[in-house]
């Protein structure tokens, strides 16, 4: 648990300053992010929570350097973000494993890019395979793994480069409930052991309370920060404890307000779909 003094004594890992992001497709403009200001401290576990389409991924992509803000600045690890880089390891909901590489090769990829000696790479990969219980899958291809296993590989692949922080975009969104809980526990264990800063995007309210030091609730269109809710419960957290449940109620009502706006907007402009988004996405 983090008390206030603890947070203050830590150094900022990510600073987001007056960030706006506008997508324009044809004559329509979507303000995905508006006046976002947020500082995330080293070692913190921050969850970004909000309904679908509120700009969570956009915010995470701005930190990752995949798609830069229209205005404002993002600083990560003391530098202004301009490009993607291995100091901000990203874990995607769709795993994004390289299907032609085995589990071990996927984990080794970033290390090979860094041109580390073969022996070092092998040792690091073996350590990670052991720590994430992947040893027996080392020579499998991703297509032969379950969702949970794939996400372990994706996490190991990022951890191999030992980045100070991990960015996770709904990483457990495609998993069944039981696997999801296992992976959440696993992630908390990794967080403690490897001492990473984690920025975790989800629309799961329970998940956010289970994991976060602070939950950042976002508004829908324009995407702003609605409220930051600290979660001061000891881990492992008991989802049936009264404190947990009252937090859950509080966050649910916050998110529902935005969810209702989402519904209303959808009704007013039907026919928007994913393909439209893809076309406008800049290639980074």
């Amino acid at each position: 648990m983090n008390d206030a003094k603890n947070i203050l004594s830590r150094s900022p890992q990510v600073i987001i300053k007056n960030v706006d992001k506008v997508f324009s497709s044809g004559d329509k403009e979507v303000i995905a992010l508006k006046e976002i200001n947020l500082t995330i401290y080293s070692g913190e576990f921050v969850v970004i929570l909000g309904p679908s389409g509120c700009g969570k991924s956009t915010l995470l992509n701005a930190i990752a350097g995949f798609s830069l803000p229209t205005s404002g600045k993002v600083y990560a690890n003391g530098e202004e973000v301009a490009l993607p880089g291995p100091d901000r390891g990203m874990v995607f909901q769709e795993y994004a494993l390289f299907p032609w590489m085995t589990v071990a090769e996927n984990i080794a990829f970033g290390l090979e890019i860094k041109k580390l000696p073969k022996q070092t790479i092998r040792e690091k990969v073996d350590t990670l395979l052991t720590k994430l219980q992947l040893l027996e899958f080392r020579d499998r291809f991703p297509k032969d793994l379950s969702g949970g296993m794939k996400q372990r590989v994706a996490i190991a692949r990022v951890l191999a480069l030992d980045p100070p922080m991990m960015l996770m975009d709904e990483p457990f969104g495609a998993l069944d409930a039981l696997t999801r809980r296992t992976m959440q526990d696993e992630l908390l264990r990794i967080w403690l052991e490897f001492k990473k800063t984690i920025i975790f995007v989800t629309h799961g309210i329970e998940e956010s309370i289970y994991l976060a030091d602070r939950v950042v609730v976002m508004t829908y269109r324009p995407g702003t920060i609605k409220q930051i809710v600290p979660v001061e419960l000891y881990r492992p957290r008991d989802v049936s404890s009264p404190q947990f449940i009252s937090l859950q109620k509080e966050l649910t009502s916050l998110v529902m307000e935005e969810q209702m706006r989402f519904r209303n907007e959808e009704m007013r402009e039907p026919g928007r779909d994913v393909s439209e988004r893809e076309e406008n996405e800049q290639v980074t």
Partner: protein
Amino acid sequence: MKNRPSFLTKLLYAILLPVFLLALWETLARQGIISPHILPAPSRVFFRWIDYARPHEPYDAGKTNFIAWFFSGELPHDALASSMRVLGGFAIGAIPALVLGLLMGASTFIYRLFNPLIQILRPIPPIAYIPLAILWFGLGNPPAFFLISLGAFFPVLMNTISGVRHVDRLLIRAARNLGANGHTLFLRIILPAAMPYILTGLRVGVGVAFIVVIVAEMIAVNSGLGYRILEAREFLWSDKIIAGMITIGLLGLTIDTAMSRINHHLLRWHSGHE
């Protein structure tokens, strides 16, 4: 649960119709109902095929080794000549197509530069180049290689372009996030990700090359399977024509099976495979 047919039952079904047709054909030919010049009996074709394939010198251990002797017949020479042409022409056509395809897929500028020209040239069947090929290169192997390489070029090119263009953006993001860029990104991510398309292109390309080699041999050269069946026609050897056709079919099947095996191995990571 329904009983799955056993292997033997399936085999029986598979050969039923061919065997019946062969028997019918044999009977009709033997009864003299069809002239043997038009359609010789299958048994005659078979013996002709053996004659075409077998060595004609008696085996002499002092002169040659056994393998060389065994393949000294006309058919192995023809098949080898055709295969070498396919291989050579395919390499001449496919390698530039692969390089150009990768460049066109990766760079919008190069794509815009080359695409109009390619769209104009692509619909011209390689066979339509025969007169030009002979004018430019005369007779013999050069026009054959030219035509075959043309046949292989476009399938490989088009598939390589779409392969590169269809690379999952997410994988590129993930790779860049892990520190890859420039030629590492290209060689280690884009190329393997495009591989299913590229291999399809190569397989189609070999298939076209094989069609074109037969045509080219009928017109421009005097060896190979295509030449042989045309030569047999001049002597009205319909049995040899059919024997040659069967050989062409078998060779085509062999090439395609080999390509498919290679693809299967290279794409063992692909979710389309079991």
